[in-house]
Structures are given as C-alpha cells and as structure tokens.
C-alpha cells in the first residue's frame, strides 16, 4: 500500500476508465442534467459526497455483515438500500444546514439513487478487492471523473442549443454523437497508466 498505487487508482478512475465515457455508468444524469454548467457542477458535488459515503458504508457492510454471515448473494439488495437511505439522509441534512444549496440541487438529489454510477462504483470496489483506503480514493477519483465529464459536456451543450441542426438530430441524437466524440478524446488517456 503505497502512495503511488493510490495515485494510479485516482488517475485511472478520472481519465483512463472514466465512469461516464468509458465504463458507461451514470449516463442518465449525464444526458438528463447536463443542460447548464451550474446545475451540472451541483450534481457533480452531490454525487461526489454520496459516492464517497456509499463506498465506505458498503465496504463495511460487505466485510462485517454479508461476508461474516455468508450471504454475499444479498449484495445488490443491501447496497441499493444503503444508497437509497444515504441519499435520503443527505437530502435532509442539506435541507437543514444549507437551504440555498438544497434549492439549487432541487430534484437532482433524489435522482442520485438511480444513478448507476453509485451502485456500479460500490460493486466495482468489492470486485477489485480494494481495502478501505483504496476504496475511498477510488470513490473520489470516480466522482471527480463524473463531475469532469458532466461539466465539460454541459459546456458543449450550451452551445449546441444554438446550433442549426436537422430536425431528426435535435435533442438526444446530437448529444449522443457529441458524447461519442468526447469519449474518443478520452481514449487518448489510455496509455497513461
């Protein structure tokens, strides 16, 4: 367990295996929420918090509940419940402590429950057999990668709104093609790690 292995985990989660553009996790908010840079950034921050907390809790749940009882097949059900209650908790805490942030995030908060990047991350942590510290850094890397992709994409989409497009390509089709070109650009990072 050295500093360099943590660095490798971070860089590969942000750039090489970017959750959105090369692992295809979290596409729904990526396409749905990314119309404005500001809301994308807020979404990214909320996801960062949920991802980090969910990774820690599911790691502990896997180690001390599922494995010690020998019921690993309950993984999917337990993890999604952890994430759902965590999102609920985050929502209540933000509502109490910072009403302004709560207002700006609005409907995006409950949507994090069905963001497959969060559930995907927790399952990948277990599959890769990370320890607790690696799990935390993997979560942070994944969250930064998600935020980076969604903010960059929002910036492009703000311009696309004004572009003159054939009727058939308006909306989702052109967004997907743009995402494809971004994904192609991110493939340039493959040799990095």
């Amino acid at each position, binding site marked *: 367990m050295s500093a360099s292995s943590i660095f490798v985990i971070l860089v590969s989660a942000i750039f090489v295996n970017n959750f959105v*553009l*090369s*692992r*295809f*996790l*979290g*596409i*729904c908010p990526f*396409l749905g929420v990314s119309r404005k840079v500001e809301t994308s950034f807020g979404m990214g921050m909320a996801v960062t918090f949920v991802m980090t907390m969910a990774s820690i809790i599911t790691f502990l749940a896997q180690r001390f509940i599922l494995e010690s009882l020998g019921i690993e*097949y*309950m*993984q*999917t*059900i337990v993890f*999604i*419940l952890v994430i*759902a209650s965590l999102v609920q908790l985050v929502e209540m805490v933000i509502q109490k402590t910072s009403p302004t942030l709560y207002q700006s995030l609005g409907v995006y908060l409950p949507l994090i*429950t*069905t*963001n*497959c990047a969060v*559930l*995907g991350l927790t*399952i*990948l942590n277990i*599959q890769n057999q990370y320890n607790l510290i690696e799990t935390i850094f993997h979560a942070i890397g994944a969250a930064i990668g998600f935020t980076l992709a969604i903010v960059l994409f929002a910036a492009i989409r703000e311009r696309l709104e004004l572009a003159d497009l*054939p*009727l*058939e*390509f308006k909306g*989702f*089709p*052109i*967004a*997907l*093609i743009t*995402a*494809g*070109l971004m*994904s*192609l650009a991110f*493939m340039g990072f493959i040799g990095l790690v």
Partner: protein
Amino acid sequence: MKLTNIFSRGLVMDNPVFVQALGMCPILAVTNTAFNSLGMGMATTSVLLGSNIVISLLRKSIPAKIRIPCFIVVIATFVTMVGMILEAYFPDLNQSLGIFVPLIVVNCLILGRAESFASKNSLVGSVTDAIGMGLGFTGALVVLGMVRETFGFGSLFDMQLFGEAFEPMALMAMPPGAFLALGILMAAFNKIVYAKLK
C-alpha cells in the same frame, strides 16, 4: 386503454430506447455484439415482467410515501434471481455482461414502469405493458448490437459475414462507437416516425 394499444405503445411510439432514452447505461455498455444485446434485453424483460406483476398485485397495500424504496426492493429481488439463473445456466453471457447484471436494479426503465404504470393498473394491463416495453427495449438493443457487431467484428451472432479481406472497424466495438451508433440510429428512428406522422 385497450391491451393492444398498451402493447404496441411500448414497441414503437413510446419505445424505451429510441424515444424515451431510458436505461442508457446497459444500452451503450453491453451492445458490442448482437448476442450480448439479446441476453441483456431478455434479462431486463424478465425483471420488468416480475416486478410489474408483483407491484401491480401489491399496489393497494404499498403506502404512497415509501413506495419508491418498496419498488426498489421488489426490483432488486428479481435482479438477484435473474443474476443467479444467468450464473448457473449461462456463465459465458454472465461473464460478458459483468457488472451490468446487478445494475439492472437502477435501470430507470423498470422503476419508471413501476411508478407510472404497474402501481396504477390491473395485473393484465401491467403484464402486457411489461412485455411490450421489454420487447421494445430488447429489439432496440439487438438492432444496435447488430450494427455494432457488423462494423466492429465483421460478424453477426458470431457468424462471419465477410471474407478475409474485411478490416473490422475497431472503433465501433469500443465505447465511442456505442455513442455514435446509437446517436445515428436514434436520428434514423426519428426520421421514420416523423415521416409517418406527417
């Protein structure tokens, strides 16, 4: 609404992939070959069918306030069952779908149908809805998988289509190809549907 309408709506007019763009993650991630697409489509359809049946039967006893967590537990149960069946009988398919089998839980299509249809309609309607939506999803996945496999590997359902001279377009088998192919297919679907409406 008539049953035939409920059924055909999922297949074409409200197609979950081309029109509603629901459940994008598995659509993009596992469609590099037609066979994987078919497997993913069938797995999702079975979960959708199971969850629609149970939620439709329980719709009067689930309290409105905590309905979403209830739906998710029902869906997660069926996903776990489908995951076990895949692991036992189709280990190769399970291997290539990988993490996207447990991720069927968070497929917005399934929760969306539970919330907007099964929790408000009778058993027969919900079953029809699940089959229509499921087949619409599977069909779209298989079309995308066939396009990507033809270009990316030069084969279709693992049968070689072209001679030795064919140089596969590796891009189509990789992540960018998924986005590009789906974008173009969606535009084509829009073109056909718009033409019909006019």
